[in-house]
């Protein structure tokens, strides 16, 4: 597993409908191999696997859907 391709974020993608709203963008993005959001976590951690995208790309996309998104720092 190349851990450098894993991008992590805190978000407020809390509910099924929140997830549906970002799904429309993230599912079809050609540079996203896989993404998941831990809705059982208080920070709703968004995990994106992409060899090309940067944290800022994803933050812009998610914020564009109307949700909070910030990099989860180590």
């Amino acid at each position, binding site marked *: 597993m190349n851990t450098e391709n*894993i991008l992590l974020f805190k978000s407020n993608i809390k509910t099924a409908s929140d997830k549906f709203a970002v799904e429309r963008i993230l599912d079809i993005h050609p540079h996203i191999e896989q993404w998941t959001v831990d809705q059982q976590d208080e920070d709703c951690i968004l995990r994106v696997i992409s060899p090309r995208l940067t944290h800022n790309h994803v933050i812009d996309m998610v914020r564009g859907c109307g949700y909070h998104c910030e990099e989860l720092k180590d």
Partner: protein
Amino acid sequence: MRVRNEEKVQLVKQKAMEMVVSDGFEGFSVNKLARACGISVATLYIYYKDKDDLITEIALEEAKRMGEITLGDFDPELSFAEGLRKQWENRSRYILENPVASAFFEQLRTSTYQDKVMECIICDFKAKMGTFMQKAIKNKEVDAMPLEVYWSVAYAPLYSLLRFHHEGRSLGGKPFVLNEDIMWRTFDLVVKALTPSK
């Protein structure tokens, strides 16, 4: 790239099982686990997708280890009594040496994670124990019977003794420590009960 530190991986596994045992699945969180392990939340999310993934992976890994301990040196060609004795030895050893993991599996049995993990445990057991049981039935060392009936006689007594031992008390709160004598006396009665009458 981050280096996967085996010591940390084992610490995460142990702490995760401890937390599930003490707080239940509802009370478990990746955040709390990271704090308990002294590592960042991000490190955990690098290796696990989410809480469910983490619990499932840890349970599968431990189930695999339990299977290896229980079945590793088990020879299906043993006679019925010898084979069952070996199973009692292996199972009691695993449970006595791994009290946290055993309690974790107890919690798992009544949770939504049960199907995924039990499938993995049962698969290995079925193959090896199936051969052992078929041979024992063929040799008339034991009668054919529903699995639940067999398990309730062959293994349930061992798990009852181990439960008393872990709780430190038996019926009516009487102090209890499992020893070899009690275990093998019970075992002899189990074999007697399962031996077909001539």
